[in-house]
């Protein structure tokens, strides 16, 4: 084997009068370990080349060595700002492979928690994006409300971030007593909080001038480069998988899909803030119409039995032992199950060879594809606009590198 030294890639300048500026991987406004190589002519960006992989952990390979139910805790480590969305995308994919029906109550709680996750993720985005641009105080406001959401997650799953609350076939367990009252208390005052953020930002001339007309990308370019989610909708393409390919009972909810035709950082800001309001409405609807019933599907070979039953029924004990030690087999086949994550299309492609372990798990992560739109947004613009543009596509490096 030849001796090779792992060396980070280097960009060479194409012209005599340009220089290379290295940005990252330890740069506060790249939201993680993203390295950008900028070729600049004075203050103007000529070329921009992202260098990623600093957070690559080989999750896809690890999944191949786990039972299907053991993959669930891996999924929320990918995009750590929207763990529930990852859990949901994975569980939906395996449930589709199995051809499983999920009880309506579990579906509605999944929708509710997913929208809370979207609120959580958008709050982190809003806080850090505004801070990048210089509006420091918004960060504190956003993290105040985010803390409330994280406490709700902690109440329901025992974890603030790596929730792993969804199971193949439903939920891990019924939410604790008083949980829905806490959600209601939070969600009822949340529109007032959004007004607060908007009061600090939307009418703030410094903030508006800093992002309006900056980082423009057309609908065609964004689509061709693989952009999805708010990044694509801010360029005028009306696609939202919750409405277009409904999953987990989203067809029962009424909500608008905010779209803007401007395609700049401002448009992405407007679209995401509108999404916060729509998510709030979905959570309210989920609370009002929450059906009664079980939160686990009736599939003893896949879903772990209730704890109480294990103490009295031999069958339940056997099934529990079997699932934990041998897993459960999934019929041969393959599925691609996309969901609308806060960042765009999060799709799980799972191939089963009929055993208890997935043959191949692939995550189509929205940040990975959205990152490709960055170069188009920034080339020909100023260095200072790069920071605004990175914030506006809302990447999570765990999601980019997997």
């Amino acid at each position: 084997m030849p001796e090779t030294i792992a060396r980070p890639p280097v960009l060479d300048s194409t012209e005599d009068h340009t220089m290379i500026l290295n940005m990252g991987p330890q740069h506060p406004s790249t939201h993680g370990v993203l390295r950008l190589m900028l070729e600049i002519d004075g203050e103007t960006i000529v070329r921009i080349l992202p260098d990623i992989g600093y957070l690559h952990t080989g999750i896809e390979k690890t999944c191949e060595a786990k039972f299907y139910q053991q993959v669930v805790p891996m999924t929320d480590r990918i995009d750590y700002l929207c763990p529930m969305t990852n859990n949901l995308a994975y569980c939906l994919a395996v449930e589709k492979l199995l051809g499983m029906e999920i009880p309506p109550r579990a579906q509605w709680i999944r929708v509710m928690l997913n929208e809370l996750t979207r609120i959580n993720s958008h709050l982190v985005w809003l806080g850090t994006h505004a801070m990048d641009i210089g509006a420091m105080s918004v960060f504190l406001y956003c993290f105040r409300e985010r803390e409330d959401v994280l406490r709700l997650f902690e109440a329901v799953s025992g974890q603030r971030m790596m929730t792993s609350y969804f199971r193949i076939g439903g939920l891990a367990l019924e939410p604790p007593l008083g949980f829905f009252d806490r959600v209601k208390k939070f969600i009822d005052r949340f529109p007032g909080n959004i007004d607060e953020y908007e009061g600090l930002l939307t009418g703030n001339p410094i903030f508006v001038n800093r992002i309006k007309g900056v980082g423009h990308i057309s609908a065609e370019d964004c689509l061709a480069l693989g952009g999805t989610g708010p990044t694509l909708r801010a360029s005028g393409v009306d696609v939202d998988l919750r409405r277009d390919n409904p999953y987990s009972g989203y067809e029962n909810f009424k909500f608008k899909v905010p779209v803007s035709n401007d395609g700049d950082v401002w448009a992405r800001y407007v679209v995401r803030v509108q999404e916060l309001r729509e998510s709030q409405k979905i959570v309210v609807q989920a609370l009002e119409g929450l059906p009664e019933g079980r939160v686990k599907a009736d599939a003893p070979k896949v879903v772990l039995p209730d704890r109480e039953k294990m103490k009295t029924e031999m069958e339940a004990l056997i099934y529990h032992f079997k699932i934990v030690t041998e897993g459960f087999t999934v019929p041969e086949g393959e599925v691609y199950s996309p969901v609308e994550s806060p960042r765009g299309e999060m799709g799980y492609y799972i191939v089963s060879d009929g055993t208890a372990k997935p043959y191949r798990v692939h995550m189509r992560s929205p940040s990975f594809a959205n990152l490709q739109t960055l170069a188009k947004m920034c080339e020909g613009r100023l260095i200072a606009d790069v920071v605004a543009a990175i914030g506006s596509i809302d990447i999570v490096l765990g999601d980019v590198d997997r």
Partner: protein
Amino acid sequence: MPWPPAITDIEVLKHKPELVALLAWKSAAIDGAKFDRNELTVYVERTCLRDACLALKNNSQLNYNALMDVTCVDWYPNNPRFEVVYHLFSTSTKKRLRLKVRLTDDDPQVDSLVPIWPGANFFEREVFDLFGIRFNGHPDLKRIMLPEGWNGHPLRKDYPVEGYR
């Protein structure tokens, strides 16, 4: 409710608009089809992949204008060993289609889709990095996740768990 068995007979699937369009375009390019769990998969001859994608993209009714995902499955030790998997999406009809190309172990290369969708760039680099598939016509085919000097392609099934030593 369990799914009905997968339909792999191309004659039975001939009513699917995607297959109608592809067969009308060039029936020799179609290697097979599968309809399973409400998802349609079409196997495409590897030399025709780029043209097939163009035909699907330019078809005004189907309008598969977005490439959502490129990945690969390694069926080692079977031959042809690799299946490169493409997920297409139409923003107007909101429908999805899966294209697959089978590649052998001794010649794992296929045309790049970057000329049609520049967004294929990162996805193909990832497949190159982790599976060792070459994409002809790719503008910048180098490792993306792993360091430049890495030995081997970790998502291949014959890659040792602890890596090559």
